[in-house]
């Protein structure tokens, strides 16, 4: 309803509702964290908070079960992929926003249509291609197939369209070449959207479990989600360790979200609102 001044009774009721909702929504994370700090035998004890919180679970998953290695792999894959995906989308978004070229409209429609294809569709043939290229169990198999981010291209295009053409024309009159215009005019003015896209693609690759499960089946290349899935099926009963691994898996994205939530929220919902 309309925003208006609220009475004490009304605001108390609203706070109550908001708090109940927050407790329900955040409960899984709360439970994950408290369980991760419990001693192995205490996973199902009747106490909510661990009476003797321990870091032992974290120590064990990191040293005995290779989550340190998985974490490093996740960082390598997600950072590299985010860097290149953002770069390619910035290049492509720029020309779609500011240039006229052969087949522009048709290409754009084609990209638009490709967004509707269900992700499951790609899994088998992409795997076959990776296999054919001899890329199985390599970082490049985990990274390269997802570097063309069509959604990112749209975000870029949308944003760059708002940059006045006069700035580009002025730079051209001053003798700037194509690359200089891109580098010295477009990039500095697009920093917010570049940061947004970097965060979103980093998040996507950090969570891109299915693909990494398929193309990297040797332990030394596991990312955190894959390591976690493997750990889950091998040690179903080690609950406190599983939760410690889960904490490690969500921590980087949770921290990024904490510091840059505006970018996440705006970036993720921007494409949706502009129908």
């Amino acid at each position, binding site marked *: 309803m309309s925003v208006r001044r609220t009475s004490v009774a009304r605001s108390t009721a*609203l706070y109550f509702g908001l708090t109940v909702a927050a407790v329900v929504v955040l409960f899984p994370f709360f439970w994950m964290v408290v369980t991760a700090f419990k001693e192995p035998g205490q996973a199902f004890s009747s106490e909510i908070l661990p009476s003797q919180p321990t870091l032992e679970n974290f120590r064990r998953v990191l040293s005995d079960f290779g989550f340190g290695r998985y974490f490093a792999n996740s960082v390598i894959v997600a950072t590299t992929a985010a860097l290149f995906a953002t770069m390619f989308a910035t290049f492509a978004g720029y020309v779609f926003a500011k240039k006229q070229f052969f087949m522009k409209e048709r290409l754009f429609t084609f990209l638009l249509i490709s967004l509707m294809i269900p992700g499951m569709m790609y899994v088998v043939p992409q795997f076959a291609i990776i296999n054919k290229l001899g890329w199985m169990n390599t970082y490049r198999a985990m990274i390269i197939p997802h570097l*063309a981010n069509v959604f990112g291209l749209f975000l870029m295009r949308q944003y760059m369209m708002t940059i006045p053409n006069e700035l580009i024309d002025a730079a051209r009159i001053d003798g700037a070449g194509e690359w200089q215009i891109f580098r010295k005019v477009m990039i500095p003015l697009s920093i917010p959207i570049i940061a947004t896209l970097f965060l979103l693609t980093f998040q996507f690759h950090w969570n891109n479990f299915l693909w990494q499960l398929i193309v990297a089946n040797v332990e030394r290349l596991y990312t955190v989600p894959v390591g976690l899935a493997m750990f889950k099926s091998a040690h179903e009963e080690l609950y406190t360790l599983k939760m410690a691994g889960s904490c490690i898996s969500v921590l980087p994205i949770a921290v990024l979200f904490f510091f840059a939530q505006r970018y996440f929220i705006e970036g993720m919902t921007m494409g949706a609102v502009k129908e």
Partner: protein
Amino acid sequence: MRSRDTGGGEARRIWSRTLTSRGRENLTAYAFLAPFLIIFAVFLVYPVVYSLYLALHQVPSDSFDVFGGLQFVGLRNFAKLFTDVKFWWSVLMTLYYAALIIPSGIAVSLALALLLNNRLRGVAIYRSAFFMPYVLDMLVIGIVWTLIYSPHIGILVRLFESVGITAFSEKGFLGMSSIAMPSVVFANVLKGAGFGMILYLSAIQNIPRSLYEAAEIDGATSWRRFTAITLPLVKPITFFMVVIGTIGALNAFVEVYAMTSGGPSVDVGGRALGATWVTGYYVFDAFYNQWRLGYASAMSYVLLALTMIVTVVNRRFLGEKD
């Protein structure tokens, strides 16, 4: 680009002579586009085509050479699919999943948006709290819920026991075929609601206040104001939620993988089928567990067809309404 084939020097001469400003513009544009388009063509366009090729072939189950040893089988994969009870069951389960998650996702998102649409101190913190799960990994969230839902000693089972309900104790929420799917959906709704919430919130905040004021003067109750003003004006968001909800259901995989692996088993006319056996999971199972690449590809083509149908229907529906 056509001049690529003719000899180098000659081509360059023709190129530079005929290179109008428009030609140069095209060249620059495609130079910028090249990295994106190459990846797009190789890893997003070609796979869709290759998938059809695979769907018309059979990969021998002992072969790991996906390109060699393929046996052309025509439409046999599709024919098999149409008589595969497990497949039709998966389509049914996907519809069931969609029927559960779309309305509940919309209701929760809208409720959160309405709660947030008040001038209260600290409302931004709640907004962040509700949105956060949306950016986190479904796999992890699924694994945590498996713990919460577990039988005998799981926290939720014990919570129900404390008020005298023991119906879930024996098998846990994910072990009972009747409630496994709603439980998977519940976990997923809580994870995803923050996204719809933001969309609804911005739509609601765009509604002119004068509308509500006029309604208030006319004596409309707050429920009436909600149904007569808010709901109709956020309809575009609701349609959008239905579209992405349907596509999400057709793609549902990680939540099922993390929580139930397609189970638990239900007996349907003497056949053991999975209570959460959605099509997305079946595609994965046919490919990853059974190594039936052709069959999995055929199935993914049916998924594509279903997605297209849904999109076209929604387009039409949307088009009429606006």
